[in-house]
Structure formats: C-alpha cells, structure tokens
C-alpha cells in the first residue's frame, strides 16, 4: 500500500504563532506554498494558515453576505483591509482544525481528505511534531507507476 511516509515533502519551515501576517505572506510567496504550518514556541504544531484563510480574514463581512459584489469592481477594499491586517499575529488567522495526516496513513486516505477539505496541502504530523507536508501533486504522482517522490 502507498503510505504517506514515502511521499512526504520534507520541508518543515513554519511560522510562529506570534509571527505577523506580513511574515506569513512573505514566507508563502518565497517558499511557493499555498498553506503554511503554524507552531508554538516549543515547535509543536497548532494549525495551518492557507491563502484562503487570509482572504477570508481580509474580505469584509459585508461583502461575504452579498449575493454578488461585481458592482464594487471599481473599489479596492479587500487589498486595503489586508494591508491593515499585516501587523496582526499569525495565530489570528490560524485554522486549528486544518486536516492533518500521519506518516502511516494511506495515500488514498490523504487524497480523500484533501479532496473533501478542498485544501492544497496537508501537514504530516508525528505526535505534535511537523515532519513535512503532503501536497496535491505528490498524491497525483503516486499513480505514475509507483514513482516515489522523496
């Protein structure tokens, strides 16, 4: 069976719960990832911040409750609100219920979890320790005649 442990993208760079949003966005951009794990001072995993979480925080409540917002196309509110949030702490945007997998889970389980949650990457945890990520492409490439990525 294909297990997560054979396909982990072994990058464990994470942000601290006290890092600011500016750092989170910079890190996502430079590392070319869509979601970044958040850890506490001890390095224990506490959640994940995805691009979607940041957008969710920067789209004003009132825009979310509108059927459509195309009549506001000439306005630049979301970028402005995001700018106001740059100094806020990462923990504020952290999704602590973000789905995770363990190394012994099967790739099929991970695929289903990714599919259901519509996320782009899953943190791989051993206890409370982050040991890497599992991204969509890792899952998609499993099928290529058993080619192992890492």
């Amino acid at each position, binding site marked *: 069976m294909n297990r997560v442990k054979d396909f982990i993208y072994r990058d464990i760079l994470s942000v601290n719960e006290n890092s600011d949003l500016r750092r989170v966005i910079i890190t996502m951009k430079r590392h070319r990832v869509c979601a970044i794990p958040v850890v506490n001072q001890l390095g224990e995993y506490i959640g994940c911040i995805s691009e979607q979480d940041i957008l969710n925080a920067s789209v*004003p*409540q*009132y825009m979310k409750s*509108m059927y*459509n917002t*195309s*009549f506001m*196309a000439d*306005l630049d509110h979301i970028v402005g609100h995001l700018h106001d949030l740059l100094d806020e702490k990462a923990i504020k945007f952290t999704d602590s219920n973000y789905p995770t997998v363990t190394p012994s889970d099967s790739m099929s389980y991970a695929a289903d979890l990714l599919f259901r949650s519509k996320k782009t990457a899953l943190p791989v945890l051993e206890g409370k320790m982050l040991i890497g990520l599992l991204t969509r492409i890792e899952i998609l490439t499993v099928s290529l005649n058993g080619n192992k990525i890492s």
Partner: protein
Amino acid sequence: MTEFLSWHLDTIHIITTLVIFIFTFVFITTETLPNAIAAMIGAFLLVAFHIVNQEEAIEAIDFETIGLLSGMMMTVAVMRKSGLFEYIAIKSIKLTGGSPWRILVVLSIVTAILSAFLDNVTTVLIIVPLTFAVADTMKINPMPILISEILFSNIGGAATLIGDPPNIMIGGATNLDFMDFIQNNSPVVLIVSVVTFFLLRLIYYKKLSAVIADKEKIQAFDEKRAIQNKRFFYTTLIVFLVIITLFITHQLHKIDLATLAIGGGFTMMMVTKQDPEEILKEVEWATLFFFIGLFIIIGGLEKTGIISFLADKMVEVTHGETEPAAQLVLWMSALSTTFINSIPYTATMISVIKEMAINPDQSIEPIWWALSLGACFGGNGTLIGAAANIIVAGFTQKTPYPIKFKEYFKIGFPMMLVSIVITSLYLYIRYF
C-alpha cells in the same frame, strides 16, 4: 380566579396549557431555544397531553398566513438574484452626491419602501451590507445610518399587509385586505417617517456633517453591474409588479392573498427557469414552523378558555368600547413588543381581540389598526424588539462597528414613544 375556575372542570388542562405557554414564551424571549423549536415542542406537548387533539391542532393553524409567508419567501428568493434591490439602493446612494446625511435619508427611505413589500429581515439583509460597503468606501462610521435603517424597517413594514409578520397575521385572521392596510396604515406611517427624520436630523446632522468623507468614491459603485442578467431582471420585476397589482385589486377578483403569493412564487420560478429545489431551500422553514407552533399553542389557549378570560378582562377594563380598547391595545402592544417577540404576542392578541365582546354598534376595525401599528412600531423600542433589529445587531457584532443595546435604546426607545403618541392621536382623530 375562583369564578374562572368554576367554569372549567379541567383545571389541570388550564395549568398545563399555561405552563407550556409561559415556558414557550420565556424560551423565545430569552432565546434559550431557537424560536421554531420552542414553538413546535410547545405545540407537540399540548397535543401529547390531549389538551387539543391533532385535528384541532391542524384547524388552529392559520394557513392563510403560512401560505402568504411562504409564497412571499419564494418570490423574494428569486428576486434577490436579480440584483434589483442592490440596483435601487446604489442608484439612490449615488444621487446623494456622497453627503452622509443624505445617504442616511435615502437609505432609510429605500429600507422603508422595501420593508413595505418584503419582510423586514430580508430588507435589512440587503441594505445593511450595502451600508457597510458605502461607509467603508467613504471611511465614515455607519452607526447612525444603521440605527435609522432599523427604525425605518419597522416603520415601513407597518404600511402594508405583507410588510411585517403582525400585519400578515392580522390579514390572515380578518377580512381586511391589502388596500385596507394601505388606506389605514400608510398615512400614519408617512407622518411618523417625517417626524422621525426630523428628530434624527436634530440628533445626527451635525455629527454627520462634521466628518470628512470621501464623497467622490461613491461614484465608483456601478449599479449596472449589480444586474447580471437583464432579461432575468426585467422578468422578475414584471412578475413582482403583477403580484402586487393583484394584491391591491383584491376587491375585483376576490382571489385571496395566500393563493396569489404561492401562485406568484411558483410562476416566478417557472418564468425565470429556476430550480425549485434551490429556491425552496431559501424558504425560511424555521420561521414557518415557528408560526405553525404558535398557532397551535394559541389554539390550546382558546380551547381551555384562557383567551376568553383575557378578552373578558379587556372588556372589563374598556367597558366594551372601541375607543379605549384601541388605545389600550396600541400602548399595550407597543410596550410589550419592545421587549418580547411581536409574533407570539400578535398571535395571542388576535385571538383575544376576536373574543372581545365589543359594543355591537361600534366597528372593531380601529382595534386591529391599533394592534398592527403598536406591534410594528413597538419593535423599534429596543435592539431585540424585532427580528430585523436582532439581525442588524448580530451582523454588526462581527464588524468594527458593533451596535450596543444601550446605545440603540437611547435613540430607539424615545423614537418608539414618539411614534406611538402620534399613532394614538391619529387613531383618535381618524376613527373617533
């Protein structure tokens, strides 16, 4: 009390009914349970304890009201997709040229008009996000505008039969039709609106004129883009105007409102090719079951004689004369619905008024207007006075401008008292 008990052998039934009624009322008012659950469990218990049997329970439900409500919900669910409401609101905002006070006036008028034809909750769900969008664009505090919108959603709702749940219930329980409501309620609604604007101007004009607002930015809103499909837009608009015209011309064709609303709702779905599954999901089933539960509980109160007891007491106080009865109902309704949900209150009062032995020489009609206006305007007294108030308050809690109970009370309660004084004079001058 002994006199009352001696009429009815089954004291236990009366006590059980009262206990269920009071608990339901308390749960609804304190929001311990969702409205629909509280009402339906109360209704279930009444049937389960054989205070009313199932047939009586079904009979007690006013399907006229349920039909009208659900039909309007379907119609509005389709219409919301057209962008009509946003179009109207944005167009009006742009006409103000960006003056905060004028925006307050214009948005309040739009709120009042929409409330008269849609239910208040739907109205504020459309207008409040737009208000925030405008305030965010102009960098102003939306609070005065929001408070004014709450006031006008309840004021505007009083104008028509379909504007507010108390009116829908009164319409369902009596022979009063759509035009009766417009003829009798809209004059006082207009007077109260003018006075309210005058008072709001005294309170807010200076404050609103002092802020430096980004007036130009308002022009960046593009109302045309709110309409994504012109054909859809015009189709829904035409069907809606036909429905309203049929409401108004009830005297000519004698088709009842519930029939028109449901027929209109499904016609709307048909001509716009909407998926009924999707539209029916937007029908507020919880609200409908809340009404159903309440009707059954009130049915229990009627059967056990509690309603006639209350009606007799009212007659005792008012000597069976319309005039004092109307004034009593007006003030009682206004003060009660300030703190308790107007829907169960109105449902109860409708039964009580029907049971009242009014002097046969006098028309009972003014009492209905007193109930309608009292229950509608009373909602303005506090932040929990009406469903729309609660919705607006809840919405603002997640924003940088949360409306606080006290803050609203300072404006809303005096405004409510003024509107009731005006209504009281209006009833006196017009009917007596």
